[in-house]
């Protein structure tokens, strides 16, 4: 009885409608699955080169490691070990302070350069190429050059400080025999390397703020400073957020400069050891890839947190 009714009902649906539904189903399939089919090859590559190493590193961090081979499962012991290690916690604090110094200096300097470029749009065409040059230099090479420039005996930095600024105490001043001055020298080198990209990006952002709003403010009698602070900087805020985030990540990852500028790497006496360097030493000098993986995971989580923060801030901006 029931079946007859249903059959009758189904036959009651007009043929055109049924065809449309069929078509919609097909479209639904296409909409739902086809994009994935096209994305699949790329996703496979991403999973292979990003997902696998990350998963593998997390996995390794739960094992004892010796000579690049996995030992027994140790649970969270590697994490407990590294946080109990004063050299690691020292590096954690040092890296954070270093990152803060690098980011603040980079953003302020870059903004200053961007404003100068923006004020002279014609010269900027040539100038921005010159500004970008340090960025094109390999970091290891720039690290070596900076090390020479900070050399206590023959370096140009000490020479300038003594002869131009009259700071006689810098005569033969040794930048790399204690921690703090060494960190200052490395900060200078890293900032020099990070500024170009940020400056040119901010310059591009500032170029887009010359519209009616600024014109209107000017007509209303706003000063250049007011226009910059109240109008132009808020307009490029999303860009500033991105640049700050990227600079933070770069700073936390700094490795090359530390490796080539200090003797031994991270020295003297551990005073310039940063997280990336310590991870590398743990993996390839101590050959304990379990602890190294744990260090990498912690750094990964910290940088992931920075990235989440960036996404959040950006979303609020859109609103």
């Amino acid at each position, binding site marked *: 009885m029931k079946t007859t009714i249903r059959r009758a009902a189904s036959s009651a649906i007009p043929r055109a409608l049924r065809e449309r539904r069929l078509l919609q189903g097909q479209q639904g399939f296409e909409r739902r699955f086809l994009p994935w089919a096209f994305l699949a090859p790329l996703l496979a590559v991403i999973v292979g080169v990003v997902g696998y190493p990350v998963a593998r590193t997390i996995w390794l961090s739960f094992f004892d490691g010796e*000579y690049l081979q996995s030992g027994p499962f140790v649970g969270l012991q590697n994490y407990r070990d590294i946080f109990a290690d004063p050299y690691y916690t020292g590096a954690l604090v040092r890296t954070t302070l270093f990152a803060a110094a690098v980011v603040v200096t980079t953003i302020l300097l870059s903004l200053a350069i961007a404003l100068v470029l923006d004020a002279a749009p014609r010269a900027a065409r040539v100038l921005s190429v010159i500004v970008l040059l340090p960025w094109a230099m390999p970091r290891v090479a720039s690290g070596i050059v900076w090390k020479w420039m900070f050399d206590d005996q023959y370096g140009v930095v000490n020479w300038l400080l003594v002869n131009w600024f009259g700071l006689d105490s810098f005569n033969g001043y040794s930048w790399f025999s204690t921690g703090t001055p060494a960190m200052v020298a490395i900060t200078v080198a890293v900032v020099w390397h990070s500024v170009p990209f940020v400056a040119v990006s901010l310059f591009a952002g500032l170029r887009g703020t010359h519209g009616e709003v600024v014109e209107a403010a000017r007509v209303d009698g706003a000063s250049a400073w007011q226009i910059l602070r109240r109008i132009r900087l808020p307009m490029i805020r999303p860009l500033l957020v991105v640049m700050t985030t990227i600079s933070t990540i770069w700073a936390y990852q700094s490795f090359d400069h530390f490796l080539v500028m200090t003797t031994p790497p991270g020295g003297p006496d551990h005073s310039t050891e940063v997280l*990336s360097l310590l991870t590398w030493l743990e993996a390839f000098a101590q050959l304990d890839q379990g602890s190294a993986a744990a260090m990498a995971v912690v750094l990964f989580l910290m940088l992931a947190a920075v990235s989440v923060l960036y996404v959040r801030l950006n979303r609020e901006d859109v609103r």
Partner: protein
Amino acid sequence: MRARNLWRGRVAVAIGLAGALALAACGGASDSGANSSGEIKGTIDFWMGDPIGDAQQPIMQKLADDYAAAHPGTKVNLRFLGKDAHQTYLTSIAGGSVPCVALIGNTWTPEFAALNALEVYANDPKTLQGTYVPGMIESTIFKGKSYAVPYDTGVRALIYRKDMLEAIGKTAAPATWQELREDALAIQAKNQGVNGFGIIGGAHWYYLPLIWNWGGEIAKQSGDKWVSEAGSTQSVQAFQFYSDLLTKDRLSPAGASAWTAADVDKSMGLGQTAMMVGGSWDLRTILKQSPDLEGKLGTAVLPKGPGGNNDTFAGGSNLAVFRECNNKAVANDFVKFMMTKENLVPVTSNLGLLPATNDALAQEKATGSFSAPLFKAYAEQADHTRSIPPVASWGKVEGANSIVNAMQSIMSGKKTADVAMKELADQVNQAIG
């Protein structure tokens, strides 16, 4: 190249780590010339790092080609590993994809032997005496067996300015460390702007041997284990002495606590340093940089310490055959070929290192590159060498720079020598225990 995105940002370290592991996992016997018949036929892989740069590449390539030419049907695939050689070896051992023959740093030999990667060369190392320089045999031994053939050795000696020493009324190089200190102070007082002695705080090979000179040991064997002696009175006094040369006597600028040999070479070349401990390779660098110094420089064996010896570290390389080599007939034959005087001396002369066989060393001393007056001291010093403790995990001690960090903490005054050396002993024991 710098188009970094956030993903890359997050995982760079992870990729670095995992990349090495992936590499290790891709292993597998790679030698194509598998040969177990004992016939001299087939292909072998021969790897080497380049501790002194790429100058040695052409001459090594020629030897590999010569061998193949002399033994039809064989081929030697030569691969230069560059500065990351140690890591490359470890990765390939972990992945089971090793070369047949390799020229490895002598301090790596016990480490690789402990990983069960090397073929035993001599069950009784005593049989090697007479053929090889004694200090170099030591470096091939692990748990009583020899795992490699000593190939070349580099020793350090005293390089000094004859003219400056003469100006303070001395005709001979200082014979003891105390005398060196006094001479350096006198030279410094007489020559403004000259460092009396080039201190090299950034590389432990320049002061670790002082422990021997003071009558101590770097580590002692106790049963099956090695125990660090860094905390001993002799070790503490030796490190204190070296640190005092910088901090009390100011024989080098403050920055010398982080100096490497290259810094002192430069300073010496510029006429700003009067004496240094340096290898024959340092001497060559200085002379190349400042040829006019040739008549002014002198060399001598190292000064003795209160312990009555002037022993120094025998650096150098060993030729090893890997256990997983599948053409040991050619591998062993090739090693023999490399070790003949005719094939060894051209290489060592070219590198400025001493050959590790006695017959080749005699030739170098008599007519070779070490017969020149300025280089004689190195050949003499070769008789006064020792090896670092033959412990598998010594590489960790070096890799972690524990010794350099200890010296720098004494130099900076952050720790007393007593505390720093006790801590060093703990660290070393943790690494080698």
